[in-house]
């Protein structure tokens, strides 16, 4: 049986925040403006983003509330009653509570009844993991209408007070500050059904390749410089003072994300999942700057590059919202691009956490 994405939705909290305003919301660490901010923003190219946080650091929407709003937006656009949904599959890197699973809170928030629940835990690629579970349950005939939601509220990790909690007022290092100027909040969703509804996207396949065995951790919360995890400290306060609760990116390892992204793409070509010449659009949740340079020149030489005009992103205006990005991107893409039946779309989500890359191929269909 086929499975189709029949509707998408999104929720971005508050008004867009431009680069000048970021520090008014997240705060200045020890009252001092960041020296790294402009450099990091220049490299990621993001111009505006959204935060579920106000300038007094009050949370404006819980993560599960954003997820529910994105889910409802998707159902409203499709015009389907929520009672029809028999499976809810949710992704986030960090729920509002440590336990229970994020999906439970989203279900409660949306007041969805008697359904099968699935939560994926990870970073950027967890949205495609959640979608794959829904896709499989629809194509095996187990569920006819499965709702998938990915939502992120990472700004709470970026409040100045988090960095000020470091022992002896230590300055945060580059790796701890890097993502502060990269990530923001938002939620995206899609509905997977057994039949197309109006113009829909047939899911041809979803594949992912993880390489955690071959690389050190690149993006994390919970690790300290001494190798202890946050739970190994006597108190959470001690873990925080040691910087174990800061979101970190080991920027030295970032080149590897391009390599494994290209490697996975070449593998899909070799295994006949995709022919680069037949692709009409590429949606990739990473900054396009990562995809310039030597490896991409090689890919061109090898006849496997997809020309730049086929690439679509809204990262620069909606921000990098972790796992939610790909759904927020798909939603805006469908609203703004004039796609036609038969066109093929590739979605790519490289996750730097510990090096997982996920891919999805969609074909536009008319019922």
């Amino acid at each position, binding site marked *: 049986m086929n499975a189709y994405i029949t509707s998408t939705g999104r929720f971005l909290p508050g008004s867009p925040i431009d680069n000048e305003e970021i520090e008014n919301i997240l705060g200045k660490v020890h009252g001092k403006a960041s020296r790294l901010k402009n450099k990091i923003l220049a490299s990621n190219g993001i111009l505006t983003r959204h935060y579920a946080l106000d300038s007094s650091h009050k949370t404006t929407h819980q993560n599960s509330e954003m997820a529910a709003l994105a889910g409802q937006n998707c159902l409203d656009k499709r015009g389907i009653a929520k009672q029809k949904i028999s499976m809810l599959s949710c992704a986030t890197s960090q729920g509002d509570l440590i336990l229970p699973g994020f999906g439970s809170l989203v279900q409660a928030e949306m007041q969805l009844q008697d359904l099968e629940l699935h939560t994926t835990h990870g970073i950027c690629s967890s949205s495609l993991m959640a979608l794959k579970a829904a896709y499989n349950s629809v194509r095996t005939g187990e569920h006819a209408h499965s709702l998938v939601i990915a939502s992120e509220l990472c700004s709470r990790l970026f409040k100045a007070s988090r960095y000020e909690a470091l022992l002896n007022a230590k300055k945060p290092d580059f790796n701890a500050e890097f993502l502060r100027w990269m990530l923001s909040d938002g939620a995206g969703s899609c509905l997977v059904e057994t039949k197309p509804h109006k113009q829909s996207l047939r899911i041809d396949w979803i594949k992912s390749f993880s*390489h955690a*065995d*071959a*690389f*050190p951790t690149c993006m994390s919360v919970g690790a300290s410089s001494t190798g202890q995890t946050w739970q190994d400290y006597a108190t959470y306060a001690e873990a925080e003072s040691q910087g174990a609760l800061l979101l970190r990116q080991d920027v030295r390892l970032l080149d*590897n994300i391009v*390599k*494994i992204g*290209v*490697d996975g793409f*070449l*593998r899909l*070509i*070799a295994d006949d999942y995709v022919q680069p010449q037949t692709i009409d659009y590429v949606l990739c949740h990473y900054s396009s700057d990562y995809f310039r340079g030597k*490896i991409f020149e*090689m*890919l061109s*030489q*090898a*006849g*496997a590059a997809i020309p730049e005009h086929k690439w679509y992103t809204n990262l620069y205006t909606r921000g990098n919202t972790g796992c939610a990005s790909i759904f927020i991107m798909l939603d805006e893409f469908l609203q703004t691009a004039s796609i036609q039946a038969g066109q093929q779309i590739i979605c790519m989500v490289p996750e730097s956490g510990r090096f997982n890359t996920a891919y999805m191929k969609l074909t536009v269909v008319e019922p």
Partner: protein
Amino acid sequence: MDQTQLNPHAQACLRGLMRVWFDFERRLNRIELIKRLETAAFSLEDYQSLLLHLRQQVIEGSRWITRCASSFTRDYADVRSIVIGHANDEHKDYELLEKDYVACGGSLSDIQRGERNPGSDALHGFLMYRASLENPIDLLGAMWMIEGLGDKMATSWAKQIDTALGRELNCTRFLRYHAENDHQHLQRFYQMLHRTCTDQLIADRIEKTAIVVGRLYCLQLEEIDEA
């Protein structure tokens, strides 16, 4: 060559070689010595051992390349010329390696007396065997891996080693040397691939040789901790 398109077989071969390389990098990362290098837990002894063992293979490097050149018949005289140029570029880089060894506290006589470890022996043996066959086009796969390693040494390992041991030792000249002429080497490689890789059988053989070289290179590095 910037403007010239590779033929379709060469393109397929290049895609295969890229995958062999990415897989090889992951294999390198699983080797204990390289794990230490990548996580900045690399010691002076580790670096001395690395140089000591690498030297025994590097010093033989010019032998398989020159043998390879001499195995090309008149039909491949143009390829032979390119390979000779390549051999000439690199046939004395072991001297730089020896200087680095001395700069980080090793003795010249130790490194010069060193023997090939089992991995280096296997790698050298394989390269010399393939190079002795007539028109050893598949050794392009070996050149691909060796060029890739040169680039990796220069752009990644040298920095990591300087961070771990301190830049003032000035002992990463051999590793860094390989960044020079990198672009030119790559263009020369594409040129040879386009010229020689004209059917699927050749593409498969080039890829296979790249895989074998990668495996034996890993064995060479694994044997450093065994010694």
